[in-house]
């Protein structure tokens, strides 16, 4: 009875909240794009300013690069927290993994997945994608390995220390490029002018591709660490 009352009350509250939200959202005027302000400027002169064809990458790694630094710091913090909470000294000894055919097929596919990941990372300023998306694809390789070959395979090849090295290396690359911006151009995370080449080529857009590479390594290694920390306990019980 008590539970039913609670359910009814919460449903009433939820309906009320939904109604209030709907009322308020219908107040919002139809968005027609803005004739002045941030987005208009970026659409007009984003290409000239940054040399990046992809304007979203231009926003992420040039106009608002500090946000991206904060964002990768959030992942760094999450990784540290997860490793702290789940740290166990147990080495994951694996199950045998899937069948021979699957392993062979994956062996053929892996280079292409890695290639796609690197493509997404390095072409962040030309096509959709960038450090974050490509980094997740790289982490996915690690995840697929642990499913198909059994978890110890990837673990033995790339120890947690290596992954940590990649992760902090990526973060420090980002920070270092920012400091280089202070030294060479005068402001933190300013686009490095001397790296700019002809627009539309791979080595254009100043420091954006290099930041992308740093972020890609950071995110990939960090997410792989998260995944490996989370599957460790299963194997502890297998003993």
């Amino acid at each position, binding site marked *: 009875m008590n539970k039913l009352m609670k359910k009814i009350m919460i449903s009433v509250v939820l309906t009320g909240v939904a109604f209030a939200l709907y009322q308020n959202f219908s107040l919002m005027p139809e968005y027609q794009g803005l004739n002045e302000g941030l987005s208009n400027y970026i659409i007009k002169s984003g290409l000239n300013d940054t040399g990046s064809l*992809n304007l979203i*990458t231009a926003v992420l790694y040039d106009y608002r690069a500090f946000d991206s630094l904060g964002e990768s710091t959030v992942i760094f913090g999450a990784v540290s927290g997860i490793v702290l909470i789940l740290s166990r000294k147990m080495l994951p000894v694996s199950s045998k993994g899937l069948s021979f055919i699957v392993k062979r097929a994956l062996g053929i596919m892996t280079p292409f997945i890695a290639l796609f990941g690197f493509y997404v990372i390095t072409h962040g300023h030309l096509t959709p994608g960038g450090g974050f998306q490509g980094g*997740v694809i790289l982490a*996915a390789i690690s995840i697929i390995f642990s499913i198909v070959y059994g978890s110890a395979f990837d673990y033995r090849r790339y120890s947690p220390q290596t992954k940590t090295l990649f992760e902090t290396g990526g973060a420090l690359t980002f920070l270092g490029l920012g400091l280089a911006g202070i030294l060479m151009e005068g402001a933190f995370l300013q686009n490095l002018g001397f790296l700019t080449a002809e627009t539309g080529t791979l080595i254009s857009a100043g420091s954006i591709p290099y930041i992308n590479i740093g972020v890609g390594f950071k995110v990939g290694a960090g997410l792989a660490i998260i995944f490996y920390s*989370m599957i460790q306990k299963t194997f502890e019980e297998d003993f």
Partner: protein
Amino acid sequence: MAVLEIILVIFLVFSALMAVYFDEELISIIFLSIFSLVLTALYLLHKAADVALAEAVIGAGLNTAIFMSAISQIRHGDSD
């Protein structure tokens, strides 16, 4: 275009409903993954390619893997 969008939106709401409705966690997670895929398609329809790519790799790929690895080690019922 509009028809495709409506179909996708119906799928979206349906998969979200199912993800909430089922008590079994595994089914919920699979529906959440489907939800992310449909959302990816909708992002593409709305001309947001970067967000679509991010949603595809993070929402449908990584989140599913993390959720699965979480439920694979959760024991039920035996409180000690």
